[in-house]
């Protein structure tokens, strides 16, 4: 009896599943090997976390005719996808902030060496890896120290200043396990305090002292800025583009007047593009054209207007391109950390932070 009476429900379920397949089959799908109509170009799959990527990919397609499929997401989920796809990568090109992940991908043999042959500024040249496994196309810096000038007068100049009584319980930063730019910030701090040989120990000691002075840890740039606006902290250590965006957009009042300074030696955090070594030759050629386009004056112009209060607030590394007004001048004293050294330490440092500083 049961088998009879179940049948209509089963039939309905199966019919539903088939209908689903039909309906969903009508929707878009794409992968790196799909061919677009007539032109011979294949679709270039771009994984990107940049706020201006939608504008740039559209402009690129308009300029070259090459169709692009854009997977726009935060850096964490994108790198998780890249990791999950390791035995069958679907991305043609990866574009995120920070080069530590690229150094690891390069070590794993996942990146195509490519030299775009474009002259860069002196800061830009320091960011180029010797094997050209990836291409820096812009830069921001970590940390920018944003503070509420309406409430405090003390302005720190060095990391050591933040350990003073004037800053007790007033400093906030992001959690490196949730905020992409924060591990490079900590790695930069370690590199500055003790170099590659003694940096980890010196950095851990400094962070524990900062915690003893009341450091508050918030998940991401946005949360640290929210804490600054609501008076939970008066100083925030965040990425330069987020700080510049806040200064440009926040409504100033008697209680709130955000300003930005840079501490000692600031660490450059480049916007980086890598090309999938396993992609077809055609896709790789298109990805190379994409890199060329992004480094051209036309590409940079789209980057500078695509996300005016967010990621567009970067310092160009192509000579002759002026930064947008709101970002201000690039810090004179900066460093580039070696991603092949600091990249593999990310899990160890984040675990330390998780267990001792948060």
């Amino acid at each position, binding site marked *: 009896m049961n088998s009879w*009476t179940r049948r209509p429900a089963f039939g309905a379920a199966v019919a539903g599943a088939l209908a*689903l397949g039909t309906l969903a089959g009508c929707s878009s799908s794409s992968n790196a090997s799909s061919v677009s109509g007539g032109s011979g170009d294949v679709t270039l799959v771009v994984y990107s976390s940049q706020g201006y990527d939608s504008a740039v990919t559209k402009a690129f397609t308009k300029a070259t005719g090459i169709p692009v499929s854009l997977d726009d997401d935060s850096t964490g*989920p994108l790198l998780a996808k890249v990791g999950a796809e390791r035995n069958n990568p679907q991305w043609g090109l990866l574009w995120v902030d920070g080069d530590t992940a690229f150094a690891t991908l390069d070590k794993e043999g996942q990146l195509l060496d490519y030299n775009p042959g474009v002259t860069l500024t002196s800061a830009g040249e320091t960011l180029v890896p010797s094997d050209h496994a990836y291409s820096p196309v812009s830069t921001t810096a970590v940390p920018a120290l944003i503070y509420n000038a309406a409430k405090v007068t003390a302005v720190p100049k060095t990391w050591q200043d933040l350990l003073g009584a004037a800053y007790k319980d007033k400093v906030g930063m992001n959690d490196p396990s949730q905020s992409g730019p924060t591990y490079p910030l900590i790695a930069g701090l370690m590199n500055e305090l003790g170099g590659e040989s003694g940096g980890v120990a010196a950095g851990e000691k400094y962070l524990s002292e900062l915690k003893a002075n009341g450091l508050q840890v918030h998940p991401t740039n946005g949360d640290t800025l929210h804490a600054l606006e609501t008076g939970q902290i008066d100083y925030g250590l965040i990425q330069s583009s987020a700080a510049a965006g806040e200064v440009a957009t926040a409504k100033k009042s008697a209680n709130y007047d955000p300003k930005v300074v840079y501490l000692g030696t600031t660490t450059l955090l480049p916007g980086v593009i890598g090309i999938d070594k396993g992609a077809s030759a055609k896709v790789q050629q298109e990805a190379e054209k994409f890199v060329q386009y992004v480094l051209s004056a036309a590409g940079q112009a789209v980057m500078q207007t695509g996300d005016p209060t967010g990621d567009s607030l970067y310092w160009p590394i192509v000579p002759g391109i002026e930064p947008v007004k709101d970002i201000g001048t690039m810090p004179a004293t900066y460093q580039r950390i070696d991603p092949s050294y600091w990249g593999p330490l990310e899990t160890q440092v984040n675990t330390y932070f998780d267990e001792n500083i948060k």
Partner: protein
Amino acid sequence: MTVTTLVAPATARTRAVAGWARKAPFALFWLLVAAILLLPILLFLLVAFSPRLFDQGTQWFALSSFQGAFQGPMLQGIADTLLIGVVTAALSAIVGFAVAWIVQRTRVPGRRLWSGCMFALLLVPSYLIALGWERLLEPSGVLDLLHVPDSVARGLLFGPVGVIGVLTVKGIPFAYLAISAGLRGLGEEFEAAVRVHGGGRWSVTRTVAALLAPAIWSSLAIVFAESISDFGVASTLANDAHFPVATFELYSAVDNFPVQFPVAAAVGWILLAMAGLALLAQHAALRNRSYRVLGGRARPARRRELSRPGTIGTLAAMVLLFMLCLGVPTFGAISASLMTGLGTLEGGANFSFGNYTRALTSPALYQPLEYSALLATITATVTVLIGLVVARLLTSRHGRRSARMLDLLLITAVALPGIVFAAGYIFTYNLPIVNDAGIHLYMTTTLLVLAYIATSLPAASRVLFGSVGQVQESLREASRVHGSNAAGSWLRVMLPLLARPLLSAWSLTFGGTLLELPVSQLLYPPNDPTVSVGIERALSTYDYAGGTAMEVIAVLAALAVIGLVWGIFQLVAPAGWRRLGRTS
């Protein structure tokens, strides 16, 4: 003789075909279950033992990923998660039972409103509830600005009490739906029998609770599994409170570079073991008992008239409950969506409706909403159909082994956080061997919808489980005796009885899918972001106001669609359908 020999093979063939036709839907059903649940989960969990399998390490067999799971914050996170799951499940069941009883069995005013509030609560993402409470109690938050002393409450919120409280709020509607579905089918004759035999209120409550055991255990299991796999609270309140939970540790393993899928899979096994314990408890409690109380002679229960003080007291309790559950997060979301900037509540706040105008006029913001609404409609419809089959299998007296396997699989799907589940889909459907077989589902809408179905199926089938389990076989047998065929008897007997629970399950799935984030994030087809991905994008680029405005619009859209569906049901469904399952 010749005729017989000619006919016999034909009859055998007919029987064989009929046999195949009977078995084919079963085979197809299990094929679908294997494709959307079993394989992705299994392949993901295998990575814990064999990292090399998907190029996630060098070893074909290793147990090192489990070492990390049983030390330091990870071990603490596992213990915290177990505590959260047990306490949240118990509290949600108690409150859900009380609300279901009040709404179903008393004449308390505003019953439809309370029932509607439960659906609204179901649609509110857990992190939004956490955000609302944080906004109220954070330093320089609303209570601080109003000079209300809140340091004790703040201390409680940013700790285990706050985490359990918010997760209980999220669990209450699940418990309510499961228990009220069971309560609706439970006629008054059992209560009358207790009273006839001299039983008081307490005896009645005990008897009713015992008869509702499948629904109550169902609610305990689902809330437990939902709580241990929740990430919304884990990443906000629990993280801010430095209260480590297993899901957050698991997400950290996946969301940080280098991605550690083997460690994430090891934590997945631990969550799975916890869910398995919940299921064992459920089976031990319900074994060898029948709860089929809905038959031809069942009489709908009457609503009880409360005394005046009783009405006032009950009403006050309901208002307070929904103020705490819905009012606070609504306030948090609306205040954030009306502000420019990042939401300071001090002098500089600039309130405006501009964010809503922006969300409604920008294609980048409203197109994802349309796309997600379409996907949620397809998902809800298919999930309810499959969920019905699942509920039937789970409550059937036959095939207990397959039912147990299915139940385990479903609870596993709930207990595994979404992002892990999504990674399992990538492992499975991006395998070169799968592509070589001509299956190219990865990065398509089809796979996204299949994943949505897989993640919403457990909750939907559990909503149906209580009602389907109550329907006695005799009803359909009587219909068949009176000449109905299988389909006819199902449509005339079962559908009227199950129409309301089916609509409940549809509404639950629609609402849950519309704002689903973790699966969408990893599986959305390039160029077609879902609304949750759009919101996440806005939030991550510091457009808090725009993102929250989209969130409010999406929740309102979900409520509007669900309201419309129930409105159509009220207008179009035969009077009997609407009356069945209601109390007089």
